[in-house]
């Protein structure tokens, strides 16, 4: 299993580049991505796909491919860590947090699978009982991306379930079984019941009202009219008391805190109209308003419910630094290595870290030389060479050879722990961006109340008998229904459209906030850039030299630079044979040394090491290399004997769509910044290519410094990032966007995330936000105009309740239709 896992990681990382350089028409049998490389009989783009494909075929689940939409690219984001990663699920603590015990034979676990995206996923995941012995039932909740699994704990362990899901290509996150979640579910059900009651009351009072309206025109005997009125009053009562309860709750809350909320006028309208109806019934007046009240309650509740369903809520549990580190460490004691759980690691322990493993604690290297990948913690795109006495951070990946390090800071005290503390910190004292539209409607409706009060006084003076009727008709005709639908209608429709494109939004007012955002901060590695080193330029390229380089890099399969060179050689499509290299040695942090069959010494590695070895550079090569280094590129070179023959300049590649996005933001008059943990040279190089001012492109920042910069910016701001190192900064923003729904989505930092990770989708989202805000404004404008006209007619006593009853739903329908036909997202 171990070797398989390493292969998986190696190959998985190369898929991004493969896609980018695609020329070949062959498609991967699993994920449908184009396959690169000319070798025969290749069916897969990566080992990850191949593994999942064979797993599925082996289990007799090949039908997955016939269900799947061929266009969809679903390269599995296979989690590299072995089965051990999930062992913590078998702990007693985890059992308490994640597993619900139904009977001695049946336990239940809920897992969040970010990978669920299509019908074939549901089919596959619900086949789990046929695949894994002991699992009795598995149900997918498609919209939430969750799976609920019932299993027999005596036969199968939770960690085995998690591992099976992982090897099917769905890395799971366990969901806690806490009571808050159950409370949420019950609240949602309660809301559905309130809507049901409102619908029942509205339909039945409407039926009686129709009879009354009919009677108004053609005559109705008083006993029947009176019966209908009182019956309506009784039927409407459950809606007014039970269904409208949420409005009263928020209205009272708003009164107590002295704030203006749209629920305040709604609650008042409901109560006042109902009382007016009662008074009219008692006085034997023709018009009661019970149908209007109940319909208002029903429509408002329905709108809110649909909106709350459209917002993505992941109930994933917060991660802790421990979850991201290996679960066991090898501690050196008395010249022996003892494997222990990570939690038993003590300060000053000596720990052995093998290539491909994450470093378990902050510490210094006692023995060994290697290069490590810090991108997870700092966002640096290039690996860092480390040797004895160098400090390393928990969470970094050891790339080349075994390291022995002394643990200095463990768990919560480590850098990683500090980043988590930053994330958990309360947001700085930034006032949340106000819902302008909501505030506007609330003010408008309050104005209506003043108007009604004044009208009542005036009519009381002119014609006391009609005063009450006129006042009520004002309240009915200017009902807040259209106004309070103005925002939810537009926002909900955009939320649904966003979701179809894989953009998951956690906040209802995300569109308005995005449209108002002035300063956009971008992470570099993995956001504006692909987050993977690729060969940018080659000097001295010829087939023979590339063949030598290709043969040599195969000795350092984990090293990102070696991978980049492998990709480049494979893509050049000119290699014909494999050159044998004798005595090939991989010198950690330096390079690879060997000899050709004719005795020529070949070295491929860092420039510094080559110079140390006495290799000569020509004047021309020196100036070329200086130019590359100025641009923040990393240099590797191939030397035959003592002269450099082939120079590779490597750097992170700009993500597709980045230029278009930045140009759009600049055209909109927004400020664009880069906050990166990478070297200033690399940041400048990206900034220049994207035409971002260098003063706005800051490199060499720690995650905490990124957060400081954002918290000091008083304008409305947005952080776009993809990794843990951006999470503290994202927490400080008005709105934050996670790319690919990585770790920050799981720990609920990002306000929204773009699952494709594509900047083109982000651009569409920004354009859609602008349009959505426009639709909202038009909705409010329309509702206001309607209310002013209707209000004016009512004030002058010209509106009878039948006209009001027709106008009210008409205005709501207009707003919903307008929101539906407005194109917010670009059509595909």
């Amino acid at each position, binding site marked *: 299993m171990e070797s398989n896992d390493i292969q998986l990681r190696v190959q998985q990382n190369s898929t991004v580049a493969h896609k980018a350089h695609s020329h070949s028409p062959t498609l991967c049998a699993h994920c449908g991505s184009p396959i690169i490389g000319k070798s025969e009989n290749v069916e897969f783009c990566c080992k990850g796909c191949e593994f999942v494909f064979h797993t599925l075929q082996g289990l007799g689940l090949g039908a997955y491919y016939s*269900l799947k939409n061929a266009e969809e690219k679903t390269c599995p984001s296979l989690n590299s860590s072995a089965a051990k990663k999930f062992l913590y699920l078998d702990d007693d603590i985890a059992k308490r947090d994640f597993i619900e015990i139904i009977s001695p034979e049946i336990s239940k676990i809920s897992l969040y699978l970010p990978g669920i995206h299509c019908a074939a996923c549901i*089919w596959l995941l*619900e086949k789990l009982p046929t695949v894994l012995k002991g699992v009795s039932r598995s149900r997918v909740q498609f919209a939430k991306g969750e799976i609920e699994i019932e299993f027999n704990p005596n036969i199968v362990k939770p960690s085995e379930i998690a591992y099976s899901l992982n090897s099917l290509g769905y890395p799971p996150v366990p969901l806690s079984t806490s009571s808050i979640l159950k409370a949420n579910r019950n609240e*949602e059900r309660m809301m559905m019941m309130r809507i049901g009651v409102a619908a*029942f009351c509205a*339909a039945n009072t409407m039926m009686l009202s129709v009879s009354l309206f009919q009677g108004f025109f053609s005559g109705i005997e008083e006993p029947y009219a009176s*019966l209908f009125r009182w*019956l309506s009053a009784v039927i409407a009562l459950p809606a007014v008391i039970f269904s409208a309860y949420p409005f009263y709750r928020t209205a009272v809350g708003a009164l107590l805190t002295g704030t203006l909320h749209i629920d305040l006028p709604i609650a008042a309208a409901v109560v006042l109209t109902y009382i007016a109806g009662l008074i009219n019934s008692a006085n034997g007046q023709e018009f009661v308003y019970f149908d209007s009240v109940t319909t208002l309650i029903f429509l408002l509740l329905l709108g809110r419910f649909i909106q709350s369903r459209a917002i993505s809520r992941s109930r994933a549990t917060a991660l802790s630094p421990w979850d991201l580190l290996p679960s066991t460490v090898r501690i050196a004691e008395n010249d022996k290595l003892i494997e222990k759980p990570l939690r038993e690691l003590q300060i000053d322990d000596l720990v052995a870290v093998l290539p491909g493993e994450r470093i378990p604690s902050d510490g210094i290297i006692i023995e060994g030389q290697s290069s490590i990948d810090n991108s997870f913690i700092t966002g640096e795109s290039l690996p860092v060479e480390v040797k004895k006495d160098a400090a390393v951070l928990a969470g970094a990946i050891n790339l080349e050879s075994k390291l022995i390090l002394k643990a200095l800071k463990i768990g919560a005290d480590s850098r990683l722990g500090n980043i988590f503390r930053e994330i958990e910190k309360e947001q700085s004292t930034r006032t949340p961006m106000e819902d302008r539209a909501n505030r506007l409607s609330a003010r408008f409706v309050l104005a209506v109340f003043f108007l009604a009060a004044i009208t009542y006084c005036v009519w009381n003076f002119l014609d006391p008998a009609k005063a009450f009727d006129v006042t009520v008709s004002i309240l009915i005709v200017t009902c807040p229904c259209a106004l309070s639908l103005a925002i939810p209608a537009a926002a909900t429709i955009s939320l649904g459209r966003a979701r179809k494109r894989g953009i998951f939004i956690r906040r209802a007012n995300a569109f308005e906030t995005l449209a108002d955002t002035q300063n956009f901060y971008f992470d570099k590695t993995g956001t504006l850039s692909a987050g993977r080193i690729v060969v940018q330029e080659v000097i001295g390229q010829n087939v023979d030299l590339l063949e030598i380089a290709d043969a040599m890099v195969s000795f350092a399969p984990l090293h990102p630079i070696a991978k980049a060179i492998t990709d480049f050689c494979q893509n050049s499509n000119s290699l014909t044979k494999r050159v044998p290299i004798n005595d090939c040695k991989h010198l950690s942090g330096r390079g690879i040394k060997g000899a050709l069959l004719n005795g020529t010494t070949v070295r491929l590695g860092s420039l510094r090491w080559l110079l140390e070895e006495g290799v000569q550079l020509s004047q021309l090569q020196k100036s070329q290399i200086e130019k590359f280094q100025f641009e923040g590129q990393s240099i590797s070179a191939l030397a035959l004997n003592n002269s450099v023959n082939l120079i590779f300049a490597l750097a992170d590649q700009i993500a597709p769509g980045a230029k278009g996005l930045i140009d759009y933001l600049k055209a909109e008059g927004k400020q664009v910044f880069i906050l990166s943990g990478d070297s200033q040279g690399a940041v400048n190089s990206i900034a220049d290519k994207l035409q971002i001012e260098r003063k706005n492109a800051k490199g060499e920042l720690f995650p905490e410094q990124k957060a400081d910069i954002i918290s000091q910016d008083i304008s409305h701001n947005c952080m776009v990032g993809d990794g843990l190192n951006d999470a503290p900064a994202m927490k400080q923003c008005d709105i934050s966007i996670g790319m690919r729904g990585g770790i920050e989505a799981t720990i609920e930092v990002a306000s929204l995330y773009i699952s494709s990770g594509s900047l083109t989708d982000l651009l569409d989202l920004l354009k859609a936000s602008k349009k959505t805000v426009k639709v909202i404004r038009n909705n409010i404008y329309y509702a206001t105009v309607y209310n002013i006209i209707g209000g004016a007619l009512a004030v002058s006593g010209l509106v009878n309740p039948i006209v009001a009853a027709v106008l009210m739903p008409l205005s709501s329908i207009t707003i919903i239709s307008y929101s539906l036909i407005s194109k917010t997202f670009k059509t595909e």
Partner: protein
Amino acid sequence: MSIIFVLLPISLFLAMLGLVAYFWNVKSGQFDDLDTPAIRMLLNDDEDKTEKANK
């Protein structure tokens, strides 16, 4: 016209039955997930066909 005094309670009673049924559905969790069943239904159909073909 006095028949209305009989018809009204009957119609309301029938409507109440519908409401009670709805409450029951909500409580049993039938509306908790509205997206998956629509897809699952199609998948089950497919499976049945293959089983019949095998027989």
